[in-house]
């Protein structure tokens, strides 16, 4: 068996990449993907811990995380589509974006 | 009569009146003024029972009188706790006395939104009385802070051209000053609670002034020197800003100049006294060691304030500004008296607080009389007013002399006692006395100069020829103020009487501290 530590390091790296993606990418979709990567990293480490402790609770948690992530993605993409359609149908000049 | 909650009655009458005013239609200014006046007079009449019942009230001479105690926040040991002693007695009376006068003056000086003005004035009265009679630190703080809201609105809505700036400055200065006091109150509470919880497990603590004081004196609560000085400082800052002590005074001229006449009167007459009262009640009693430690420095600030206020007042051409700066000077006297830390100084300070309330209040009214007629306060616009307004000029002379400290009038007694106190205080003595004397001289100079410019000489300005003398209301208000000005000058013992024991009690800690070294 591969020791748990290997998985932890791998997932930490993936998590870090995800965080970086959120912070440095400016494309909303890619940012969104990076968040998914972070969640996946968490899932990976959960499964690894579950295996180490022979406790299936970790796997159950992953199940929930995946479900919630799916819901989040659905809403997020719906919002993106809505923005696209709004901007598409209204005059672009009139659309005021949030001020800083 | 023993258990009649007379203090609560005095406290809440104005607030109830304010509530009642809500029923008055907004447009009906006359009715609003009358209702407010009746309420104010009623409050004053009730408060008259205080000095007469004072000695008969339960409790020996050194403790609080007319005490009321109701649980309020039992989990913190905070209570609705009221009471007065010789220190606060006259200040309460000053407030209730000035209130009807101020309201009477609004007939001539407030012309817009009269009803709301009266509501705020009455609320302010409740808050100010509350500050003087609260024995619970938390309750005290609440009243203390609440005075800000009505006063800010009074300045900001009915004030002069620069009123917004003045209102904002007033609020922010005083609010910033007092938040540290809140920390100090909390700190004192926690220290007290923890100290007593050692012997009484589960003790909820107390915000009661008398309780905390008793435990401080008995040694049940001992403050570390540094802690005591920090607490002292936090309280002191709040009060020094309110007084205002130089160099915290900068809000005062703005507030005074912009405030409507009635607002200025109440500001000078009572609101500043909240500061001097706080210094006596809390700083001196609770932190005697720190008071002694800080006294020389504070006295220096006070003296600077006396001289600075006088000099700046001298340079003013705007009469209201002149009176405002004279307040800085006079309040310096009061602080000097307080930090003489002896019975003479403190008694003088209390009396001078009353005097200043009467004289300066009257001076603001006097300035207001002219302003209502001519809409200017520039001295250069006037001259020879004596000829057209003789009664007015006569009263003004009396008030100005009282403010300048002419023997035979109230101001003299107060300033003399303070100077005596300063002289007797070992840390202060000669140098401070001489500066104080200089302050008195300067006061005479700038007040008489104003008098000369405005009233004496020829009627240079043609616009002034048509000026009418005081109307009945103005006469009534000013005469009412002159009565105590003369009475206190002739028979100050009446005021000093109830004060003695309480001042002694206040200074007990300091005396012990002296004896202990």
């Amino acid at each position: 068996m591969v020791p748990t530590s290997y998985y932890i390091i791998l997932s930490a790296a993936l998590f870090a990449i995800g965080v970086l993606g959120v912070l440095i990418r400016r494309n909303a979709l890619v940012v969104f993907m990076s968040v998914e990567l972070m969640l996946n990293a968490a899932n990976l480490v959960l499964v690894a811990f579950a295996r180490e402790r022979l406790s299936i609770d970790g796997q159950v948690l992953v199940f929930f995380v995946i479900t919630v992530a799916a819901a989040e993605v659905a809403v997020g993409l719906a919002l993106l589509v809505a923005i696209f359609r709004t901007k598409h149908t209204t005059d672009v000049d009139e659309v005021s974006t949030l001020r800083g | 009569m023993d258990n009649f909650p007379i203090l609560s009655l005095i406290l809440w009458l104005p607030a109830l009146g304010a509530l009642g005013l809500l029923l008055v239609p907004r447009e009906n200014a006359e009715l609003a003024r009358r209702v407010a006046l009746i309420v104010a007079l009623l409050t004053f009449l009730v408060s008259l029972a205080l000095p007469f019942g004072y000695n008969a009230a339960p409790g020996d001479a050194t403790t609080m009188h007319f005490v009321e105690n109701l649980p309020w926040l039992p989990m913190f040991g905070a209570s609705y706790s009221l009471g007065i002693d010789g220190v606060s007695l006259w200040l309460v009376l000053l407030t209730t006395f000035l209130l009807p006068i101020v309201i009477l003056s609004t007939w001539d000086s407030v012309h817009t939104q009269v009803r709301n003005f009266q509501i705020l004035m009455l609320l302010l009265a409740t808050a100010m009385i509350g500050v003087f009679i609260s024995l619970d630190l938390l309750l005290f703080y609440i009243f203390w802070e609440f005075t800000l809201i009505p006063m800010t609105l009074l300045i900001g809505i009915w004030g002069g051209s620069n009123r917004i700036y003045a209102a904002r400055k007033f609020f922010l200065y005083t609010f910033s000053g007092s938040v540290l006091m809140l920390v100090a109150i909390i700190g004192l509470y926690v220290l007290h609670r923890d100290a007593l919880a050692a012997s009484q497990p589960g003790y909820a603590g107390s915000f009661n002034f008398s309780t905390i004081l008793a435990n401080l004196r008995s040694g049940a609560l001992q403050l570390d020197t540094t802690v005591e000085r920090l607490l002292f400082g936090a309280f002191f800052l709040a009060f020094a800003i309110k007084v205002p002590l130089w160099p915290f005074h900068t809000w005062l001229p703005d507030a005074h100049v912009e405030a409507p006449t009635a607002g200025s009167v109440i500001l000078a007459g009572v609101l500043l006294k909240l500061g001097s009262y706080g210094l006596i009640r809390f700083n001196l009693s609770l932190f005697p060691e720190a008071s002694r430690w800080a006294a020389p420095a504070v006295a220096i600030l006070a003296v600077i304030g006396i001289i600075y206020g006088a000099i700046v007042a001298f340079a003013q051409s705007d009469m209201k500004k002149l009176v405002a700066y004279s307040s800085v000077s006079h309040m310096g006297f009061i602080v000097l008296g307080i930090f003489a830390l002896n019975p003479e100084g403190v008694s003088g300070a209390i009396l001078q607080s009353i005097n200043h309330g009467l004289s300066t209040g009257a001076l603001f009214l006097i300035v207001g009389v002219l302003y209502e007629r001519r809409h200017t306060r520039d001295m250069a616009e006037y001259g020879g007013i004596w000829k057209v307004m003789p009664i007015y000029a006569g009263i003004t002379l009396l008030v100005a002399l009282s403010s300048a400290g002419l023997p035979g009038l109230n101001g003299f007694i107060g300033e003399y006692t303070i100077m005596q106190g300063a002289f007797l205080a070992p840390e202060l003595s000669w140098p401070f006395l001489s500066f104080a004397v200089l302050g008195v001289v300067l006061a005479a100079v700038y007040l008489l100069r104003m008098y000369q410019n405005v009233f004496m000489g020829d009627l240079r300005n043609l616009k002034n020829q048509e000026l009418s003398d005081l109307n009945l209301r103005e006469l009534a208000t000013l005469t009412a103020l002159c009565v105590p000005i003369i009475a206190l000058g002739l028979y100050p013992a009446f005021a000093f009487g109830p004060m003695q024991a309480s001042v002694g009690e206040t200074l007990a800690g300091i005396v012990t501290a002296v004896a202990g070294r």
Partner: protein
Amino acid sequence: MDFVLFFITAAVALIGAIAMLVARNAVHSALFLLLNFAAIAVLFLLLQSPFLFAIQFTVYAGAIMVLFLFVVMLLGAERVEDTPDRIPWQRPLAFVLGVALVAVAVAGVLRGVWEEPPGGEAAAAFGDPAQLGALLFTDYLLPFQVTGIILLIAVVGVAVLNQRGRAAPAARRTPTGE
């Protein structure tokens, strides 16, 4: 054998992640992420989680990523606008924070155990999907129900956010902001 498989999949996962991060084209990003998810699914299998392996493939790699691709294509990758970067100092701050966190995490792990997870009979029986299913309906009944509600809300939300698009926008347009 395990190790070889692990290192290969781990490398694929990392490459997928990094490539997603640096790809300029959102379609490419999505595809690389898909690769990463697939690799993670394989790792799940290595960790005796066949059920999660299936879910990872169907839900994540299948449904979610397809949805992503669909939206990317619908909007056109180049049309998806950049999220504006308003407060400049926050980005470096957040960056430092993120790096610090990862550093802490790695440092913590490096102090950790290197021994293998337990083996034996219990381990052999571990990861049976039936076990997981049973847990979902016993100990985890409440969270299970809550996820159901969350999904319901998501469905409602998608409908709410997009149904009003049907109304003629020109007639309902209002000036926005100030």
